[in-house]
């Protein structure tokens, strides 16, 4: 559909600045665009976190760099923090940026199969970003109804007091979905069709599998929510009442529409992170991935299961209690494939020769932290325990122990690992290690206390606990400690940004394959030119053939003829 114009493969190198950087069709440029936008939005989301955490630690005080936070702004900030971090940080970085950058390189192709659909997808995404940020300056302020946007609060201006904000929010989210639908179709078709000669199913690096499975999950789950978003917009603008009980609608419908998408969404971001980690731990422990097929099938299993667990977000949200029993069973069952994945990754280290580079540190810290997120999920998946823990800070801590490893730890691991390929230069390891410890330790300091305050009864989205004198008042120092840790964690991102931007020009030259890795992207120049490969590689073996006995080198690139 996207292709017309000529068929001739002339040289790709006369492009104006505009074509190269502003409206590129080259997958690497688009990846860079997604990465930059995603990192910016991530920092913005981090700033929001700092603001509302400060308000909570010292209610009613001026927040440095922001000022006084009133209830409406607090809600807007928490809501935007959630929305930004998931839809504008985790997805662009993990799925879009790494997907765009890695897929064509790792399958030995010169670009995505639909380059201009790819470009369109970023442009729509950018538009959605602009709308979301603009909503902060709209009359009434940004939407503050929680990132789940339950109606009637989200559907009725007079309840939410943000007539513009809520509509702009849902429009932005809708556009973002469309952008990732286009991107996803591109990823899937590219991996299915454009693989290098000789690359069979089991020769595809895990990270590509995960990104494509994630895209399929996203595509399959987002449809109902898109329809629901249209209905919500109609409710907001024309007062139709799809979600209004007095007009025969039903608020619970939205909750189902949202979570039918919302739960697979968790795996949409989890799987790429898992894939990135798989690449890194195999390279830096010089080991074959433990049971490639097992990993692959567990990932499919997780994907399929993730479609039948959504209502565990609604146990106490007014759904029929009998359904809860069904969904609690499926939810607990999902622990099986997930533990499988963790075990397999740990087993991959067995008999390895582990080199603790920054990338490896981040990858391993992902495993360590994600285990925590996984096990605490059992508390919330078990309906009986959820009756108490639901919507407390225990939940917050739980899903931050999944999302922070996913989006931040794994994301950074990927950046450190592929940076040489992206920019042709190495990052500074010392700064990297400082950045790692300065990120990982504060992260735990933020959320372990919150598990405790949550268990003690702190509920979410409260801007001032002085109104709940009997709720964990004696634990207020923990809330303050968590806030302090947030600030530390944010400050430790400065060395990273310095490292990231300075190394582009000052870092030492990387060469084609600095990590001695097997996969095809390391065959290309770094950074790869437009068109990626001087001659297109053929594939002769699976991607993780490290330390094969009887070879002098401990790695064996996929494209090396036997």
């Amino acid at each position: 559909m996207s292709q017309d114009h000529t068929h001739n493969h002339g040289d790709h190198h006369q492009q104006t600045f505009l074509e190269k950087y502003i409206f590129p069709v080259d997958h690497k440029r688009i990846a860079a665009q997604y990465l930059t936008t995603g990192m910016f939005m991530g920092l913005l989301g981090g700033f929001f976190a700092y603001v509302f955490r400060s308000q909570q630690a010292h209610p009613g005080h001026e927040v440095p760099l922001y000022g006084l936070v009133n209830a409406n702004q607090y809600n807007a900030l928490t809501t935007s923090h959630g929305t930004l971090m998931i839809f504008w940080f985790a997805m662009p970085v993990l799925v879009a940026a790494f997907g765009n950058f890695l897929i064509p390189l790792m399958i030995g192709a010169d670009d995505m199969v639909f380059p201009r659909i790819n470009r369109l997808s970023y442009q729509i995404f950018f538009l959605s970003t602009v709308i979301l940020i603009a909503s902060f300056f709209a009359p009434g302020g940004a939407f503050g109804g929680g990132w789940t946007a339950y109606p009637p609060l989200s559907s009725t201006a007079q309840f939410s007091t943000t007539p513009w904000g809520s509509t702009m929010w849902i429009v932005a989210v809708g556009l973002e979905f469309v952008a990732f639908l286009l991107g996803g179709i591109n990823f899937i078709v590219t991996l299915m069709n454009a693989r290098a000669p000789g690359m069979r199913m089991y020769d595809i690096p895990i990270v590509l599998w995960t990104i494509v499975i994630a895209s399929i999950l996203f595509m399959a789950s987002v449809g109902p929510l898109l329809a629901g978003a249209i209905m919500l917009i109609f409710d907001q603008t024309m007062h139709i009442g799809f979600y209004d009980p007095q007009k025969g609608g039903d608020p619970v419908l939205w909750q189902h529409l949202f979570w039918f998408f919302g739960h697979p969404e968790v795996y949409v971001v989890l799987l790429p992170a898992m894939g990135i980690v798989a690449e890194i731990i195999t390279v830096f422990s010089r080991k074959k991935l433990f049971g490639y097929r097992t990993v692959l099938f567990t990932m499919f299993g997780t994907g399929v299961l993730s479609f039948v667990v959504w209502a565990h977000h609604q146990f106490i949200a007014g759904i029929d209690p009998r359904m809860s029993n069904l969904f609690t069973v499926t939810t607990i069952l999902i622990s099986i494939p997930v533990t499988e994945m963790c075990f397999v990754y740990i087993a991959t280290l067995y008999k390895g020769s582990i080199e603790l580079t920054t990338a490896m540190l981040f990858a391993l810290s992902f495993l360590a932290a994600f285990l925590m997120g996984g096990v605490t999920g059992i508390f919330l998946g078990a309906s009986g325990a959820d009756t108490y823990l639901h919507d407390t800070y225990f939940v917050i801590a739980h899903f931050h122990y999944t999302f922070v490893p996913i989006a931040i730890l794994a994301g950074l691991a990927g950046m450190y690992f592929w940076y040489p390929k992206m920019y042709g230069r190495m990052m500074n390891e010392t700064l990297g290690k400082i950045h790692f410890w300065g990120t990982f330790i504060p992260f735990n300091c933020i959320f372990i206390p919150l598990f405790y305050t949550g268990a003690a009864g702190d509920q979410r989205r409260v801007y001032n606990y002085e109104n709940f004198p009997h709720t964990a008042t004696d634990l207020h120092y923990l809330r303050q400690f968590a806030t302090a840790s947030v600030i530390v964690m944010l400050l430790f991102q400065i060395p990273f940004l310095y490292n990231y931007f300075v190394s582009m020009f000052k870092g030492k030259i990387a060469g084609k394959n600095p990590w001695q890795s097997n996969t095809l992207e390391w065959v290309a120049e770094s950074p790869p030119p437009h068109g990626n490969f001087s001659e297109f590689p053929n594939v002769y073996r699976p991607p993780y053939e490290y330390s094969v006995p009887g070879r002098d080198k401990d790695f064996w690139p996929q494209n090396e003829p036997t």
Partner: protein
Amino acid sequence: MMEHVITEASSYAAQIDHLIDLIFIIVGVWFLAAEGLLFYFIIHYRRKKQPQAGYVTGERLHHTKWIHRAHYGVILCDVFILYFAVLAWHHVKQELPEPETTIRIVGEQWAWKFTDPGLDNELDTADDVVTVDELHLMVNTVYNFKLEAKDVVHSFSVPVFRLKQDAIPGRVITGWFLPTKVGEYDIQCTQMCGLGHGIMGAKLIVETKEQHRAWLRQQHGGSQASVPNTNDIQNVSQNKPNGLFAKK
């Protein structure tokens, strides 16, 4: 353990706490085991000690059997947890005990309105006592509550009861609790409900039957405002433009 974190003030609080403790122990063991193994490998197989890595495909049975065994353990624990989870759920949410008293709880932006059946112990009679943001309960009495929301979704949460239930506009949700400890506690709204969500708390006062009766009498003696006549019920129930179209 949970009871040291927060008071148990209802009949089923203990059951839920035990469930949480149980899960805590089970997953705690697994968690420590997994982390222990992870760190053992990281330290034991680091480059210095292990310059040359082994070649393990992980496709062979004598390797995979370890993961399989671990899995049988996981599945066993899952079943165990599920059993107690569903048990607790069924007790708290599914089977209603015969109520001694039934109260109505209405959430609206941003206050809780409680209707106590009053001395005749029947709702919607002249002697109902309507209170705002203050719930008086008799200790050791089986309560049913009819939970409603007037405008947006709220969530009625009493941490010390381990009770939490969303109030959905257009639905009447019935639940129960049995207060076991006299005292003053917090009632929270745990579902985002707009500007005032952060202050939508209420005071829960669990008192002896005598104190409660005394309080009811004093209410009748007291302010006219809290004695609802049917008109007042209508008035405060007119919080939606959509009310316009109930009839079409």
